[in-house]
């Protein structure tokens, strides 16, 4: 079943004179329960794509349909309600609230789904334990490291068990151990709860956890790789190769 469908997405910034086309006709479908990653050079429009897919930003042209509802052209309030209830975000810049502790930041999305406090706290405990941030639960964002912020941001995206998760370089600031912990967590959510995940990443290792990788160049889809039945290692090699062609760098793998 198709959960997300994007048709001919165009997005440009600036006014008539300073116009810059960032997305130039992207067609994309994501099946329910898929784990997709999006790769591409810096500035190629990955964050922009995630933003328009998740209705945080408006497209210039084209349509986005999520669960058979057209998102483009709906009222702002309507979209917000949808984000609040069905989407989870891990932003590139972490986007934590300075005035809240780590724990409060993480529990924030739960305040709108009416679940009992005990259950909420239990969910927090287990998530924080898994992501290794339990001992900084009472600290403020400006008192923790970049990687800790990133894990906090991830925990916030998971806690209300959304049906689609958008993750923008969720492992960018993490060491390989915490990165693989986080990716395993994503995979687990993907498999056990059949959450749909769209993740932007620069890291081929991270991308190799996915079932499909979409490469973006100059605002268009350059190519896609499907994992199919191959092993993660083989998929990883494929990704490396494509990335090499895309970036014009020769890899010695």
């Amino acid at each position, binding site marked *: 079943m198709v959960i997300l469908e994007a048709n001919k997405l165009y997005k440009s910034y600036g006014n008539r004179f300073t116009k810059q086309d960032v997305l130039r006709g992207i067609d994309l479908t994501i099946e329910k329960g898929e784990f997709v990653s999006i790769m591409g050079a810096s500035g190629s429009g990955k964050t922009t794509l995630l933003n328009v897919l998740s209705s945080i930003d408006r497209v210039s042209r084209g349509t986005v349909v999520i669960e058979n509802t057209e998102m483009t052209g709906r009222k702002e309030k309507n979209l917000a309600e949808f984000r609040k209830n069905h989407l989870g975000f891990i932003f590139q810049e972490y986007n934590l609230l*300075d005035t809240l502790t780590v*724990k409060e930041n993480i529990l924030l999305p739960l305040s709108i789904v009416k679940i009992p406090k005990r259950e909420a*706290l239990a969910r927090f405990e287990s998530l924080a334990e898994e992501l290794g941030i339990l001992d900084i639960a009472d600290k403020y964002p400006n008192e923790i490291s970049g990687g800790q912020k990133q894990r906090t941001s991830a925990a916030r995206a998971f806690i209300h068990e959304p049906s689609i998760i958008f993750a923008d370089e969720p492992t960018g600031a993490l060491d390989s151990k915490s990165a693989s912990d986080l990716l395993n967590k994503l995979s687990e959510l993907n498999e056990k709860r059949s959450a749909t995940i769209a993740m932007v990443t620069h890291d081929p290792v991270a991308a190799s956890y996915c079932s499909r990788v979409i490469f973006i160049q100059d605002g268009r889809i350059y190519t896609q790789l499907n994992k199919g039945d191959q092993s993660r290692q083989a998929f990883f090699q494929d990704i490396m190769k494509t990335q090499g062609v895309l970036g014009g760098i020769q890899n010695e793998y």
Partner: protein
Amino acid sequence: MSINQLIVRNLKKNIKNYYLYVFALVFSIALYFAFVTLQYDPEMDPATGSLRGEAAVRAASVLLIAIVTIFLLYANQLFMKRRSKEFGLFQLIGMTKGRIFRIVSIENFLLYTCSLAVGIFIGFAVSKLITMTLFRITGVESVAELNFSLQAFWQTLLVFAVIYGVISLINYFYLRKQSILSLFQVQTKTEDKVKKVSWFEIGYGILGIVLISAGYYVSGRMFSGDFASINGLFGTMLFILASVILGTYLFYKGSVRWAGHLLRKKKQGYLNVNEVLSLSSVLFRMKSNAFLLTVITTVSALAIGLLSLSYISYYSAEKSAERGVAADFAFTDEETATSFQENLDERQIGYETNQVDVLIFDVNVSNLITNDFEALTFDPTQMTMPVVSAKDTGAVDVAENEVVFTETNDIIKKLTGMKDSGEVVLEGENFNLPLEMTSMSDLSVINSAFSFGLPTAIVSEKTFSQISDGSDPSLQRPYDQHIGVEITDANQIEEANTIFKSLENDQYPQMSKLADERAQKQNMGLAMFIVGFLGLAFLVTSGCVLYFKQMDEGEDEKPSYEILRKLGFTKGDLLRGIQGKQAFNFGIPLLVGLLHSYFVVQSGWFLFGTELWTPMLIVMVIYTLLYSLFGILSFFYYRKLIHRAL
């Protein structure tokens, strides 16, 4: 890019912060200049001429300087904070702190110079407007013609030069203290590092409440005779002021923070969006909040107190004229009254007359008096009061062995604690007549030339005729009747008053309600004016400080709004949270300020007038409305911010 270009760039980017700062400057300068201009205006001489008047004006101008300084210090602090990133950047590219300080000082100097020019111009215009209003309310008929006062100009210049110096000094130390890193972080730092609220803090809170209560308690007893001497009174006032202000600070610092923490802890991290925007945001800045809230509370309390007292005196003027003069015009001499009436007839002014016979008796009212204030000007066992017959007053029903007192003004009632009923004894020359005082009537029966503010006793017709021969002749005045003339058409009172003026009579007191009211208003016109001016200045200042604070916080929290909206919280969600925060930031200082001012007014209002509740409540309501205006303004500001956040 050269450093100069960088500076110009930054100036453009910070333009909004400059607007605010310049507004604060111009406002303060205009306010001060207007006040000083009025102070030196020769036209105000009839009002400020007296020695006491001058002292009052001086004291007021010192208070004004204090408020203006606090306001500018706050504006400067915000301004510096907003630009801290810029300073950090300058240092990062190799500018020395000394150089930055010089740039800031020169820039400030330019801002001050321009603001002085504009502010003085506005202040001049405003002072002219004020003189006109002042003459109107005091009823002085004169055209407000104001000259530009050089003296005022120099004084304003001097005061703001000093403030400039102080602010430069503060900026110097601020810049020296900050490292580059801390400059970059100024806006995201939590001020509330302590996670666990210590017993210490709870102690602070309790101490705060105790201090406030002590201040209230002492203020209630201030005029009850416990602090008899003037020095004692002055000391007491200082004590009250200090203990209430300190108490307020500790209350905010301790109790509010403690309550906030408790609430937050109870939530165990599970906050909803309302609490995120109100509770956590308030606690995040609790240290500066406590200080600022104290300033605002104090300033509000002072403003409400001052405005109430001034309005009490204005309001009472009307009332006491009404009490003092039982009719539009009152005579004690039949001849003058007759010629007044003839004049009225001539001009075809309709009127009604009422003649009342008045006897003076000593009355033992010691049963009614509950206070024994030393300053009582009369002996309660022998209160000399006028007695009239119920028949003459027309409106009151009095049984034979009863008596009704007219209500006296609130001062005497307050000082004596007079009861509403009880037994009194009428002491004639050779008899004592016990009577039952049954009630107080708010009727005004006779000319105050008889009563001097004390109540008048109304007895039944029969009793009156019984005692009329037995009064002590030494107590009687040279006149024994009150002739009231009531003008039928209120529009003609003015005309009648001109006639009244032409009939002067030195021997027999006669009164005109209109003239009396005017005289009273003129008398306290100056005091009212000073106090009213200060009160309004305080109101605007406290409103501005709060509004600035809200703008500053809003600016700091803009990223939060963006995040929350990205996560899917709607504008409505956020605005509801903002309302909670506004309720705290504006509501709490207003409530505490109202409470404080209530006690201030309660303790000394009777020195200013005779009416307490109506004028005080009117002032409180108006103050609340005006003050809420600032709350609404800042709410709109937030709405714009949130709207633009995504």
